[in-house]
Structures are given as structure tokens and as C-alpha cells.
């Protein structure tokens, strides 16, 4: 012995295989979780929502991306919770032997040397297939190799998600509000397009008149007259109603001279016992 037992080399080889096996299991876990999350999102119409607003943009793929991130995150948590080691993936007696040999790798004795030789002989026959076979998923009394079961589940779920996302079924279950939003978007896009044309061109087919506060103004939209009233101070919002086309005649006149006329009617509207007092107040106010 040159200071280290030969079975350690076999163990290092198996550690490498085991790490790759664990990584594959984690990726499969991530695939399964991501598929489940994406399928749930499809049922909620989230990918359709993103495609609707950000079609052609990278944002449209964010549900898929988020599903993948959640999948990786979930796989990491699962990996932490179900932490196992290589020894658990060996046949029971070999596992105990190997663990004992590994934990006593620094000791030198006749028994340890015998154990090391035996472990080396048996570990040299262990490969990735033996490790895969040992990790099993149990269904009552039956069990299947975990890796194969996860791989099958991941493939099925991914296929389902792919088919489901491209089928008409996905659209049919889109929420109703999206459809009305869709109509609005089309109309807004039309209007916006026409305004751009109006700004660029000389004609003013939209015909929104200049003085609009408090007065009905006229907007012509696709040869339909719209009466618009904007209220001063509101700065936003309008009320529109369709009217028939009508001729409007505008005439100019000279401004007249204003004369102050005391209004009796106002005095009369006051309570009789206060009339005199209020009258004196206004007379004093006028003379002061």
C-alpha cells in the first residue's frame, strides 16, 4: 500500500457518475416542475395575455421563462430536501462495507486491508446502471426506477404543454375581458393611425374645432359627426354623441354698453325682516 487504498479510485469514479446522475435527476425535476407551472399558466390564460400585449417581443415568452426559473428553483429545493449520497445507491451490504471502508480510509490494519480489497473488487463491478436501478419510486408494493419514471413524466408533460399551447383550446379558454380589450385595441389603433395621417397631411378630416371648452364641438370620424363637450378644469374626458349633419351660421355683432340695474327680484327673495339690513349693506358697499 502506498498510503492510499485502491478502492478510493473506484469510489472517485463512482462519485463522478453519481454527481452526473444527480444533476440529470435535478434537470428532470426542473423540467417536470416547469412543465406543470407552464400548464397551469396556460389554463389561466397567462401566456395568451402576454402574447396579446407583447406579440413579437421577448416579453411574450416571459411565462415560459418564469416557468423554467421556477422549475430550476423547485428542483433545487427538492434536491436539498431529498439529499442522499452515493452510498445509499449501492446494494445494502456493499453500501455498509463501502461506508465503513471510506470512513476508516486512514487506518492501517489487517482487517481494514481485507475490507479495502473486498470493496475494491465489488465496486469495480458497479456502474451507472447499478446506481440508476437502486433509486426507485414506490407505488405501494411496486416500484420503478426513479430516473426512468421521471424522464417519462418530464417528456409527457413537455409534450402536453407544447400541444396545449399551440392548440385552439388555448384561445377558447381565454378570459372574456381580453376579447373586449382586443376590440378596443383595434378601434384605438385605427383612430391613432388616422390622427397620424391628419397630422402629416394637409386635410383635417377629424375636424376638431378650436374652442371646445363648455361648448359642443364637432368631430368628424369616418364621415360620422361626433359632438364633443369638454368641461373647463376637467382637462380630461369627453362625452360624445352622434348628431345629424347640420348647417351652422355664425354672425358677428358689436358689443353693447353694460348698465348696472338694481335687481328688485333679489330683494324680494329675501326674508322681509332682513331686507332693510341687507339693502343698507349693499348701498354702503356701493358708496364706500
Amino acid at each position: 500500500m502506498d498510503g492510499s487504498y485502491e478502492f478510493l479510485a473506484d469510489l472517485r469514479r463512482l462519485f463522478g457518475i453519481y454527481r452526473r446522475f444527480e444533476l440529470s435527476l435535478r434537470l428532470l425535476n426542473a423540467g417536470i416542475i416547469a412543465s406543470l407551472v407552464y400548464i397551469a399558466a396556460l389554463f389561466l390564460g397567462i401566456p395568451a395575455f402576454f402574447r396579446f400585449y407583447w406579440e413579437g417581443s421577448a416579453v411574450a415568452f416571459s411565462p415560459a421563462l418564469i416557468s423554467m426559473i421556477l422549475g430550476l428553483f423547485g428542483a433545487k429545493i427538492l434536491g436539498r430536501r431529498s439529499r442522499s449520497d452515493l452510498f445509499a445507491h449501492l446494494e445494502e451490504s456493499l453500501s455498509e462495507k463501502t461506508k465503513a471502508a471510506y470512513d476508516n480510509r486512514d487506518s492501517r490494519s489487517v482487517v481494514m486491508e481485507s475490507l479495502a480489497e473486498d470493496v475494491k473488487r465489488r465496486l469495480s463491478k458497479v456502474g451507472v446502471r447499478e446506481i440508476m436501478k437502486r433509486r426507485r419510486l414506490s407505488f405501494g408494493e411496486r416500484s420503478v426506477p426513479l430516473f426512468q419514471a421521471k424522464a417519462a413524466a418530464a417528456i409527457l408533460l413537455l409534450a402536453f404543454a407544447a400541444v396545449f399551447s399551440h392548440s385552439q383550446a388555448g384561445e377558447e379558454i381565454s378570459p372574456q375581458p381580453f376579447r373586449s380589450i382586443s376590440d378596443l385595441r383595434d378601434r384605438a389603433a385605427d383612430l391613432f393611425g388616422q390622427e397620424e395621417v391628419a397630422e402629416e397631411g394637409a386635410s383635417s378630416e377629424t375636424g376638431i374645432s378650436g374652442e371646445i371648452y363648455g361648448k359642443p364641438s364637432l368631430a368628424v370620424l369616418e364621415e360620422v359627426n361626433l359632438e364633443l363637450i369638454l368641461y373647463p378644469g376637467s382637462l380630461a374626458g369627453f362625452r360624445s354623441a352622434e348628431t345629424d349633419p347640420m348647417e351652422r351660421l355664425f354672425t358677428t355683432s358689436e358689443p353693447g354698453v353694460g348698465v348696472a340695474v338694481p335687481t328688485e327680484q333679489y330683494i324680494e327673495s329675501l326674508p322681509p325682516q332682513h331686507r332693510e339690513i341687507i339693502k343698507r349693506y349693499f348701498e354702503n358697499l356701493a358708496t364706500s
Partner: protein
Amino acid sequence: MRDDLINIYKDAPAIFDAIKEEIGRVVVGQKSVVEQILVGILAGGHTLLESNPGLGKTLLVKTIAGTTGLNFSRIQCTPDLMPADITGTTLIEEVEGSKVFRFEEGPIFANIVLADEINRASPRTQSAMLEAMQEKQVTVGKNTYRLEEPFFVLATQNPIEMEGTFPLPEAQLDRFLLKVFIDYPNSEEEYQIMERYTGHAEPKVERVITRRELLSLQQLTRDVPISDDLKRAAIKAVISTRSWEGVEYGASPRASIGLILASKARALLNGRDYVSRDDLEVMAYPILRHRIILTFDSERRGVKADQVISEIMKSI
């Protein structure tokens, strides 16, 4: 030395088979008891055998001693047995006209000591055995005498006829590595016993292991590798006894050491070069049962130490 160890290690399964075969000539059945006593011998610990009278405790110990080339002595414990009767005493002897003191060794100076019905000895005499059992030495007057290796005390006691007995104190019980129960034989075994011991010829055993071989096997026992997981499990089991419901006092760290050593010995005895979980689970009972003191309430409810150990071993 190393070559000797290698040879003895290779021959160990054959040696153990031969010992079991020789014991089997005299003792019918009781394979588990034989195994546990051999574990005690390999681990270098003392064993307390407990059974009802007539189940062959003394015969078993004498037979085991007979298969080895070791000095064997028997102490029949009685209430009037004095410590000097065990350890030995200093005599005045006349040599060439002058008187000299000479130490006369007691029966404790043997490799295998059978302390029969140890609970009948007075506490003073029981205590005299403490030093010998723990330190493997005897002090008489100002002189200390080393006991020859290997040294085991195989003590017996029966759980009935408690009148006139002195139950072993906990400190002394703790010095026994194992406490082994001997149960009644089944009907087939009893038939064989009857056949074997009702004829003229009494079965005899041959010596199949030498002192040197036994010492080497003891050394090999300590070399049997055990995983860190099992070491931790053993410690956890022992620590659990201290806070387990229904237990007044749990086992000491000496129990942890004993459990590991006994598991190693069982592995070697069964031809394994590593300790398995099964070794730990089997040896937990004889290692822990005399180190657990149940509460009064548990005893009133008829709970046994073995039941508690079983629950503890399931929990770890």
C-alpha cells in the same frame, strides 16, 4: 507479529466454527447466548448471565473455558465469602529458618473467572471484584498484582430466590460489558438435553484455541472498521436512554464504548470485516439492559428494559 495476525485473521472463521461446534457438544441450543458470551470474550469485557436455576449457566461457562487453553477458576459466591477469599492473602512462610511473607493468589488470578451466583456475595466481597474487573489488577496491602491477559469474569445470578441476596449496585453492574438472559430450551432442545445427559458418557470438549490466538483475535476485534454513521447511531441510542420516558437513569458513556466494541466483536465472529447496523441492533440489548434503571411507574406497569431498548433502536 503482523504475519501472525494475518494468519489468525484468515483462520478466524474456522476457529469460531470449531469453538461453536465444541460448545455444541455439551450445550444444546442457546446459540444466541453462546454468541454473546464469545462477543464478550473477544471484546475483552465481563459478562453477567441471568437465568432461572437449572438452565446450564455454569455448564456453559465451564464449557467455553474448556474450549480455550486458558486458566479457569470458579468462585461460588456465598454471603460469608470474604474479599481475601477472592483476591488472595499474604501468608507467613518459613524459608531456611527465617519467616517471610508470601502472597497466595486467590481464584481471581485466572484468565476466565466464573463468579457463580454473584448476588449471593456480600457487597464488600462484590466490591473487591470491582478493581479486578475494571483495572485488571489486585491490590493486597501495599502490593498491586497485575492479572494476566486475557481476563474475563463470567458471573451468574438468578432472578428468583432473592432472599439472602445482595443485588449488584449500579456501579458494579456497569462494569459488566454484557448482561445475557438465558431462556428455557424448546421441547426439541430439551429432548436432546435429556438424551445427552441420561446416558453413561458425559460429553467432553476439546481445546480449540490458544491463549495467543485469543489475544490476537481480541486485537483484530478492535481493528474491525465501523462507519461514522453507526458510531453516531450508537451514541444516539445511549444518549436516548438518559431522557427516554419511563427511564429513571440511562446508560453511561461506558455503554457507548461497549456497544461499539461488542458490535465489532459480533462482526468478526460472523466473518465480516465491517460492522453492520444489524450488529448494533442485536448488541444493544445485552449492552444496555443492565444500564437502564426504569422508573417505579414503568416497573409497576410491567415495562421491561428490553422493551425500552427496542423502542429506542427503532427511533434511531
